[in-house]
């Protein structure tokens, strides 16, 4: 398949962005390949209700 792109004049006045967050891209220019992915997890066990401060398991070399 042959694909031809003709780039003509482009002039943007103002861009206002609140946030570029969690694997997002804001690009003024050309790119060949962009791949972004993100994961957000809050499973049931991430809600703890209790009066004691039991520390979460620390990072260990064994795992």
């Amino acid at each position, binding site marked *: 398949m042959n694909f031809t792109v003709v780039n003509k004049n482009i002039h*943007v006045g103002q861009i206002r962005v609140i946030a570029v967050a969690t694997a997002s891209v804001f690009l003024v220019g050309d790119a060949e390949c962009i791949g972004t*992915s993100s994961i957000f997890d809050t499973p049931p066990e991430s809600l703890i209700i209790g009066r004691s401060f039991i520390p979460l398991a620390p990072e260990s070399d064994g795992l």
Partner: protein
Amino acid sequence: MRTSVVDTFEDNTLLFSSVIEIGDTAIVDLKADIFAIQREIPFFYGHEGSFNYYTAFRVPLLKANIYENPSTSYINDNPIIKVDHIKILGISTSGYVQIGSTKDIYAQARVFDVRHFLHYPVSEDYPLTEIHPSSRGY
């Protein structure tokens, strides 16, 4: 590749493995692993939490499957991309802002949230089932 021209650029915050790039690049690869714990009283031990323990940090993320390679040609009638003014408030967690051209950009972010309450955060107006749907058993 075209030339990018930006007159003024303004950014307030840049954090958590984010990048602002002015100029051209070849490959950009951003990674952020976030383990967040929020407690009703802000008390922390400082060495808590394990990335290995949670699957969110281990599962492979989806990757684009490019099975077709069209032969692409570009004709740049006007080789300039012009922007007068850019204002960004914040860039965070593998956020990428570039003025210029690049070949590849890869970005990934993994966020795991833990909330720790001392008391049941329940009132008549705001039942626990609304805070967390799986708490119906309480």
